[in-house]
């Protein structure tokens, strides 16, 4: 089942939709599960960490993959339409991939596409994730409750897929 997130998707970089078009689905611990019509009714999980960093992980139903995005109001140095490299350290495994800058009102940050099932496994099973970008930003997020939240995202996505197909 955990591969469903990977298998549900395709493409290169996510287009992050503006917040008002999203629909709340339900919550799972600190994570809000949301449906994003802008990416073909893809489900995502989102939370704001204690340090003010908004973290979002979502499905891209039209793509063969998903995305992870992190935004913070303090990251004012991030410019639009920039690409870079980021590393994702789960302690057990280390990942690296391309990122693209994202600006949503006051929020600035980056987003990375993934389709490696191991990344999602780490995200579900890990305790903490340290993210470092080529722009010099480094921060750690807690992965408490991610296993349940990812399961909810998959459930949400299955529901959306069913609606889309019908």
């Amino acid at each position, binding site marked *: 089942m955990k591969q469903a997130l990977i298998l549900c998707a395709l493409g290169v970089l996510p287009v992050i939709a503006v917040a008002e078009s999203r629909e709340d689905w339900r919550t799972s611990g600190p994570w809000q599960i949301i449906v994003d019509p802008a990416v073909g009714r893809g489900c995502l999980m989102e939370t704001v960490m204690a340090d003010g960093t908004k973290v979002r992980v979502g499905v891209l139903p039209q793509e063969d993959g998903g995305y992870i995005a992190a935004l913070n109001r303090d990251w004012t140095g991030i410019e639009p339409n920039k690409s870079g490299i980021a590393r994702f350290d789960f302690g057990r*495994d280390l990942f690296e*991939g391309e990122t693209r800058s994202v600006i949503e009102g006051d929020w600035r940050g980056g987003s990375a*596409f993934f389709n*490696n099932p191991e*990344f999602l496994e780490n995200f579900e099973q890990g305790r903490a994730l340290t993210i470092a970008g080529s722009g010099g930003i480094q921060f750690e997020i807690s992965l408490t409750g991610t296993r349940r939240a990812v399961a909810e995202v998959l459930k949400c996505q299955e529901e959306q897929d069913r609606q889309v197909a019908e």
Partner: protein
Amino acid sequence: MRRGAIWAGAVVLLLLVVLPWLVLESAMFSKLRRDLVSRALSEELKIPVIIDGDVSVSLSRRLRFSVVDAHIPSTTMPDRITASLGAAQFSVPLAALLEGRFPIQDLVVRDLDAEAYRDSAGRTSWTQTGGLFTATGDNGKPKSNLLRVFYDKRIDIQNIRLKLINDQSGFDFLFDLQAFLLDYTGSDNPVTLTSHGAMNGQPFEVTGDFPRGADFSIAAMFGRQQLDISGAPYRDGVTDGFGADITLTSPDLQGFLDLVALKGDVEGSGRLSFALDHRPGVIELDRIDLGARTGAGRSLMVRGRAGNLLTLDGIDLATDLRLVEDAATIPPAQRLRDIRVLRVTADILGSRGQFELAAIDAHTNAFDTELDQIGPARVGKLFRAEDGRLELTGIRLQSGDPADPFLVAEGQILDLLALKAFRFEGQLNGHADMIFPDISPEDLDELGRVQASFALSDESGVVALERLVAESTPSDLWRFRGQARVADLTRFRGASLAADMSVTGAGAVLQVLGLPDSDIGTVALELGAEAEGSDITMFLGLDVDGTTARLDLSHLETARKNILRGALFSPAIDLDGLLGLIRSGVDMAKANRQDSHAREQPSLMQDRRVPKPLIVAPDGRAIKPLVVQLDPGRTMLLRVLRRLDLEFGIKVDHLTGNDTFSGIDSRVVMNRGKLSAGPLTARVAGAHVTLGATSDVILDPGTLHVDGTMSGLSLSRVLRLLRIDMDASGKIGGSFGVALDLGRDVPLLRRTTGWARFDMKNGEIATSLIDLAGLGVFPWLFSGRAGRGRAPIACLVAPVTVNNGTFSSNQVVLETDAVQVILKGKINIPANQIALRGEPRPATRPLARSAFPFEVTGKLTKPDVSIVRAGGESREKRGVRTVVQNHQPCRVYQLDPQ
């Protein structure tokens, strides 16, 4: 005397002054002057010059001729005039004239109309030899006089209209020149050429230097197109001709098309350069380098050489046509209509006017293909039509063995630049070795060929396969006929296909192919299909010995779904024959696969495995990528499965050749990856089994859930299977629900988990041991059952769980008319182990202490049965004498908990 002298003087004066004046200028001698000058010019220029107006001559160190209204008629076409001029002046040195020569110098012309005309048959209005541009050499062969004409003349022409009309190629060039000046200032100085005006309505300007025997250069601008020529005549005294480097730069390809009056719609730029070697009978182009790029991101590169342009010999051009700017940005095609050609590379080889396309690589966004050599090809005519289209007609193309080509096609493209208005008709001639590469030549003859004719055109406005008719050549072994048409090939609309094939001696065909023989007799196949884009309906009819079947399929594509409906109907299928046919098909496929495997050179760069990183993090961990390359085949399959909405019915009235299925009336349904199939009624081990199956082929493709019911399983057969040698009667029924793990490579039973429930009523078993064990020795002896040697079975209820080959139960109840036996334990079939405990009791006193509780342990095939003396459960301690009123057979009684 003095008077005579005066007269004599007058006569001399008349002879010396007046007479020459009269001859040179007076109207009286006008005709004489015209004839003399006309003849002299005709001899000098080697073409007839006719003077219609007057000629006057002024005398100095040179004679200066003034001619009004002259023309040069065509010597080959009497109704055409090669040139006409309004007025001309030129000089001839007196000394040369006295020597009988008439070399023209310092030519000044006003209002010149010139025309060079070639008719559609190739005849020209000018002579091919002699004249201004070509001269006859000492050896009688033509030699180039093209440059010689520029070396020793000063020519000043104003108001020129030069028409080059070629009805053979369709290209017309109209030069409207305000001035043309060829300036010759002495034998050591270069002749300079300057001219300006318009060509085909576009501004035209040319400058050039022609030093005698030295390097020359020409720079011309045609609108925005720039032509640079720098060259030199051959000075070795042997070769007659010149070599030149020529570069044509076009910053505006549309402007170039306008210049040559061709209809086209192209934005872009291009550059062509080559080294020209011009000798009598030879125009050789070397170092050809053409690069053109359009605004739409398409590009064409051509590099190579042409040994002789006149005979089209020695052509060797490497072409690279890119149809998209960046192929990496084009997504892989998911549907037929999404397939786009991205890039084509080919080597064009030409010899004696025939072309071959060798080493063709075509890259699309769905597949890459390396075509076998196409060619030789011949082009009849390249022609510019009156409306500006560039036509290519008389194309003849073939492919395959030159002596026995696989493809021969003839056709034309009436708008070459737009690749439109084309028609090709041809024949295909296929051999069996196209399908079976290793077949021997003798066997090849036996199987014959498939010949087809086709017509491909876009006359309807879209590319259409108007006709494809194929038929096998007469053979005793098989026959094939088929026809197809597609109204719109690019969108696959309006397609229809009909084919029928019969193999008279399928076994013999297999022998010919070197495959295992089979008993298959005549096989007949019939196929029909209609397609409108992705919406397809088709049927397939099959007639093998004893088997007739018809398969109907329809496919409808909507925005979100691919709806596939199908039905297989057969009044009778002989499974043996069908399996034989399938085996033959598999053998053929294997033979082909082995062959293709043998030929393939696997490329490491195309290996789908995820490579491990060369670079690892400083702490030694490998850095894993966020994005991995997914198996494109699986990705494509998942896309297809997600969209697929399938309903498929199967109805086979009589299925012979097997003991399991007598007929099938079943459906397969799949929607969003959820597959369900059933019911399937089968006869297994004498029992009737009705099955249904479901699977989630996207999320859990490795698991097949099977549930169903069973009836009529003979108890005696079960005992025989358990190797219990005992007569019995009664039929067992039941239901089950199991999941099969399809991914593991172990026997089916070990991949099965789930449940089953068996029950039976009114049977009999040929032993009274059950009654003995339940009643105890004395009650049994006095019950009258001791001598029966059998026991009727009132009921059996056996709920069982199945886990990878182990059947286990907590409560199997078997009841005779006197005894209830409760069994618990497990049977592990893969491990051949049994561990059962049974507690028989009187049926009317089910709470009584069991007289002979027993255990069956050890190997399933050779179990140990033992009586457990100390047996008994807690209920027995408190309910020894309890008699149950209105006992329900197979009901298990429990005491209420204390």
